């Protein structure tokens, strides 16, 4: 224990703390908590870089690992909670008023609450005026998850989604009780050209 002065003692303590943080990152289940743990991990490594006589690397690590990386993690995790619905039916199937709420809105709200998603209803006029043939292209190229249209002859509402997404199957299971709602799945059209 001869040459243990303050600096190397701090270095040992920080490294043990680093191991504890790494174990807790691996063990935790909630992704939001892990972002904060990653920020702390990066700050501890930056301090260790300074103790190891590399201050320029420490500046780079603080700028990138503690500022930019948690930002992009937060952005990407929050993008994964959205469920975007395009409403082309244009009637009171989906309305979120205080007075009454349409049948479709009740179903979609129950669905998104059950699976911890955020419902986002869009009725952009430009997108709604595209013909029905472009629906699959809309689903593939943009972020839209579900398109709601109305079939006037049979008086059913058709919800169109992607067949590759598990959410469409879960919505179909939930909509089985309603007989004027039908779920249609777009099959994948990729040939790998």
């Amino acid at each position, binding site marked *: 224990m001869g040459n243990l002065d303050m600096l190397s003692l701090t270095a040992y303590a920080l490294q043990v703390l680093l191991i504890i943080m790494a174990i807790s990152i691996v063990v935790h289940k909630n992704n939001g908590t892990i972002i904060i743990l990653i920020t702390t991990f990066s700050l501890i490594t930056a301090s260790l870089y300074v103790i190891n006589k590399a201050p320029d690397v420490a500046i780079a690590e603080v700028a990138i690992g503690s500022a930019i990386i948690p930002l992009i993690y937060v952005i990407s995790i929050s993008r994964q909670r959205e469920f975007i619905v395009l409403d082309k039916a244009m009637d009171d199937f989906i309305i979120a008023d205080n007075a009454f709420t349409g049948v479709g809105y009740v179903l979609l709200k129950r669905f998104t609450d059950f699976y911890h998603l955020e419902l986002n209803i869009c009725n952009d006029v430009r997108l709604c005026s595209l013909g029905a043939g472009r629906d699959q292209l809309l689903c*593939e*190229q943009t972020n839209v998850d579900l398109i709601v249209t109305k079939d006037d002859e049979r008086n059913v509402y058709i919800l169109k989604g992607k067949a590759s997404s598990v959410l469409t199957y879960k919505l179909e299971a939930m909509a089985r009780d309603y007989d004027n709602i039908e779920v249609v799945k777009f099959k*994948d*059209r*990729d*040939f*790998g*050209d």
Partner: protein
Amino acid sequence: MMLYVPIALIFIPVFSALIIYLIKAQSIRYLAFVAQIAMTVLAILYYEAYTGQFADTFFVIGGWHERVGISLINDELSLSFVFLSLFIWWMVLIYTFNTGQNHRTFLFFLMFLQGVFLGLLQTNDLFNMFVFLELMTILVAILVVFKKAGDSFRAGIYYLLLNISGVMMFLIGIILIYFTFGTINVNSVQTVIAAGELVSGDEVALRFAYVLLMAGISVKAALFPVHSWLPKAHGVAMSAISGLLSGLVVKGGLYLFLRVNQMFAGANIDYALFFYIIGALTAVIGVMFALTQKDMKQVLAYHTISQVGIVMMGLSHYDPQTVYGGLLHIFNHALFKSLLFLGAGVIIKAYKTKKIKEIRGVMRTMPVVSIFMIIGMLSITGAPFFNGFISKSIIKYGIQDSGIKYWILFIVNIGTATSFIKMAQVFFGPKPMTIRLRSLEQRIALMTLAFACVVLGNFYIPISTGFFGVDVSHVSVFQWEAFFDYAVALIIGFCFYKLVIEKDPLTVRKIREFNLSFEMSNYLFVLYVAVMTVYFVLL
């Protein structure tokens, strides 16, 4: 003046890629062809001035001292790879010439990848290799998901995460070499190891560094436990990208295998048996999975794995003749695999489906393309008069002393023959109604590749002695045994196909649906590193 050609070969594609991306005119795409012509001319002039002397091609960037600067070097091995990659990139550029929207972005990534790959082939500095490997991983991941459809996203993320952890192992190996020898210049390390005065602590660190470097290289070259990224990534990418990846980027890993072994040559590490077993396992597993797939591009992707296994079987010997067989198989495989992938792209685009059972009558619809595809299939199964036969014969000649090695190669050949007999079904049958496709550039690319296969298959003796200085006159096309072996392999393959594969029994279905989860492949990777540590360091 000639000394600066390697720098030009790296930076011309990168700068032309930037200019193509920034200028928003449609006619700027021709700059890619101009850049490619410039690079070909420079490479040919450089080869004319090449004298074979090490000191003539050695060039340190920035004029630093050679132990701390980044240096570039070229010898016969890297020059041959440079010519191969220029040729394959020409083919891909011609093939994808007019493919619609986003073409400028596509050319940007393609030319950037070419610059990075040429840099990887010529560099002499270990950390530079690491940087180029990471850049290649990022660019290939972007190119795999370029089509933004189908399963390409899951293939892309799987590829990215697995390869990044592999390249991190490579970096830890570099760390160990730096702190043992004080330099990361490949030539300096090679000289120090060959001088042979190492203390025992250095010896252990040296072997452990070898294990870690080989772990990183095995991930990039798709050897046995860590091969599972390749069928996913190559099966769902665009056909031109699949041809490029299977033909060339996988060979970058094998090139690094040769370089690292050359660097550690003085340390007497006994790698022959271990890498032979890995190569044999890779080849057999690749063929086994290839027989069970129904999707045309997945079959070709699994065949890439098995041919890389055959190359490893050749490269893992100590005598230069068999190593040359493995090296020649790298070139042959690049040619016929890209030919097969580009041809498959033409067929799939015309028929709008990927399953072999649904495509029929290609011979009547596209007779020219089907002739080129048949040339490719004959090459990969090792028919005489085509180039696959030459390299497989050299490897067979090198391992003819050991019975079991010979039988493993024979089984792999039978499996390859079976699987291509199954794929040859697409040529027969009636002509379907609505196929109409005319694209001249694609046919030119296919024709050049098929021509190269036939040329290499017949004129191998002058090419080998002229370029590499290796004598392969013991392999002759006109022996009875060659035709007999090939006919036997075809007949056994045909019987196996008719009796077993066509009926699609439960075993075949189980193998087809076998999926290695991401956690499992990482676990296998760590296990692989542990086994290599035990074998190389402790034994």
